[in-house]
């Protein structure tokens, strides 16, 4: 199925949660989701016959200035189709439901997004920093991140 | 798979396998014991460096047009250039490459329009200090040379200014003439 077909099917099922279809000018299309219903949508995508997205490739956190977004790349081995989901959250309160219970692969990917952008995935079994030390301050991949001058006495420059 | 066979049969099969495959491996390594070796005694024998090798930079100062394309292309900002003057009248005082940062990516050489910067075949890069990692590729200029160049630049500047003033004056004169008319 093409992303447009999947979108119409999703729109049918979750009219409030799924954003309008936008044909991209360049690159891949992307389906915008309301963060509140992300979990239900993902569950549907995983289990619905005909869709069956069993492979979560990637979760990306993006700082778009006013909003932080979490992008999900999904793939189905059975039907060989891919899908990109995107959920935008407010910068002040970046909270999203976790999908780690649907795809175990999301465990580390969500931890990485939390580590780098501070997006909090609610319901994640073990949301800790993964790449950076546990006592690191700030979220480096945010655009307004300021490099610390020192870390535990190790000077920067 | 293993369940189909009786444990006793499996036991002896394992034993037999162990003996046979050990023998196979031992004959192979034993065979290599007498084969020619592939390593070389490095400082005495040196490897042949292909011309495409990306080693230390070779900088041809006289060809350099001071376009700073290499500086712009460098992903790690490891090139620092200082010069007096511009274009043909430049005197390059400093062309330093910090090899503690350099990626040997060849982007600087590709960006170099006069083709004066290349990655050469030299691979011996070790240094024990940070300062030693910075190589000064430009010829060291003497004080006199710099002074002379500065004077030359100043003279040219003065000449240029004089010319400009003269031109300006001429313009003014012509303007006055037109006014007079």
């Amino acid at each position, binding site marked *: 199925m093409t992303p447009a077909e999947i979108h119409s099917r999703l729109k049918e099922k979750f009219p409030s949660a799924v954003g309008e279809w936008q044909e991209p000018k*360049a690159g891949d299309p992307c389906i915008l989701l309301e963060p509140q219903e992300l979990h239900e949508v993902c569950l549907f995508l995983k289990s619905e016959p005909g869709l069956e997205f069993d492979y979560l*490739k990637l979760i990306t956190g993006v700082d778009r200035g006013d909003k932080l977004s979490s992008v999900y*790349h999904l793939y189905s081995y059975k039907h060989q189709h891919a899908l990109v989901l995107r959920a935008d959250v407010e910068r002040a309160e970046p909270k999203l439901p976790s999908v780690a219970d649907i795809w*175990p692969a999301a465990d*580390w990917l969500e931890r990485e997004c939390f580590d780098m952008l501070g997006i909090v995935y609610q319901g994640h079994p073990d949301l800790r920093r993964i*790449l950076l030390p546990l006592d690191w301050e700030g979220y480096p991949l945010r655009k307004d991140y300021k490099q610390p001058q020192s870390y535990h006495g190790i000077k920067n420059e | 798979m293993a369940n189909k066979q009786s444990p006793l049969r499996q036991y002896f099969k394992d034993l037999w396998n162990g003996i046979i495959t050990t023998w*196979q491996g031992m004959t192979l390594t034993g065979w290599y014991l007498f084969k020619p070796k592939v390593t070389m005694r490095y400082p005495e024998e040196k490897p042949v460096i292909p011309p495409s090798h990306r080693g230390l930079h070779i900088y041809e100062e006289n060809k350099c047009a001071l376009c700073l394309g290499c500086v712009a292309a460098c992903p790690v900002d490891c090139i620092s250039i200082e010069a007096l003057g511009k274009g043909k009248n430049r005197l390059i005082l400093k062309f330093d490459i910090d090899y503690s940062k350099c990626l040997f990516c060849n982007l600087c050489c590709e960006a170099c329009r006069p083709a004066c910067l290349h990655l050469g075949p030299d691979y011996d890069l070790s240094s024990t200090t940070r300062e030693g990692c910075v190589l000064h590729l430009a010829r060291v200029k003497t004080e006199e040379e710099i002074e002379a160049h500065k004077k030359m630049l100043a003279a040219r500047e003065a000449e240029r200014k004089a010319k400009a003033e003269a031109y300006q004056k001429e313009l003014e004169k012509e303007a006055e003439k037109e006014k007079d008319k």
Partner: protein
Amino acid sequence: MNSTLEQPESLRTEELLVNMGPQHPSTHGVLRLLIQTDGELVRQAWPHIGFLHRCFEKIAESVTYRQVVPYTDRLDYLASMNNALAYCLAVEKLAGFEVPERASYLRIIAAELNRIASHLVFFGCYGLDMGAFTPFLYGFRERELILSILEKLSGGRLLYHYPRIGGVARDIDPQIAAEIQNFIKEMRRVWPEYNRLLSENAIFIKRTANVGVITKEAAVAYGLTGPCLRGSGVAYDLRRAHPYSLYERFDFEIPIGQGLKGTLGDCWDRYWVRLLEMLESLKIIEQALAGLPEGQITAKVPPVIKLPEGEVYVGCENPRGELGFYIISDGKPQALRIKVRAPSFSNLSITNAIVRDVLVADVVAIIGSIDIVLGEIDR
């Protein structure tokens, strides 16, 4: 036992928490595994990563698209060609550059050679993990041939910076082609020796078969890709499923695990898939060399690359699995965000699920069979 016998208070047993790494001979870099052991038995293992974090994604937001290419080399430093290829494909897809056929063929030759080199390192290191030292040197001996070929082709021995946006850096000459042919011959000769030395060795089979079994379902659920996924019996290869860079023109097979020596999805299967893949790569290289078209090696690319607004994800089949680059562009010369889907990162995330109630030696076998490169896990 006699229940009336009381245990003295001073006598007690406890589970040991042992740090395996970051400085440990068999964690392949700076992986730190915290293992909870009960005697020789490992109850659980928690991988701790990030010791090699180099802020690739942050840097990629501040340099131009062209300047990112040498950085991608350093992600999975054992397969630089494949990394740069994936990145260039992503940029080209978003920008709409047409890559000349010759360049695509050269990219494939380079990428497949690099795949063999990477698998040879795996072969050697896995032997080393199992305590056999000699396969390591044999693997590196053949890898050396590849490195010298790639050095002639690209100028680098480990970090090639060979695929560029729009094409490749250098053309191949007949001498290099002849050397590649020689290598193919040599590799076909020594490949059975590898099996004689290691793959078929009874001790090696005892150590790896039935150890670290990853079921099909678990492999898919944890997002495993590459040989780890195929070792579990899923015949999924991006080169075949979603061909990129003209891979659809080549005839090759996708080896999958069959549980030949034990259970489907055990360490031996993953190992065997990689060994078979080397032969398949040889096939691809042979075909690519035979059918190498004439023409340009690079497309017309403007000096300053600006991508149109939009986003793109391109995944490539790396030696370790699906390496994906997700590029979001906002029209500037720098990307808004470049995210790497690192195959080893997802592959390693299954560790805690499969390292349960195994022996200490098996932990080494399992981690080794996942074939991680910390360079791309930590980025």
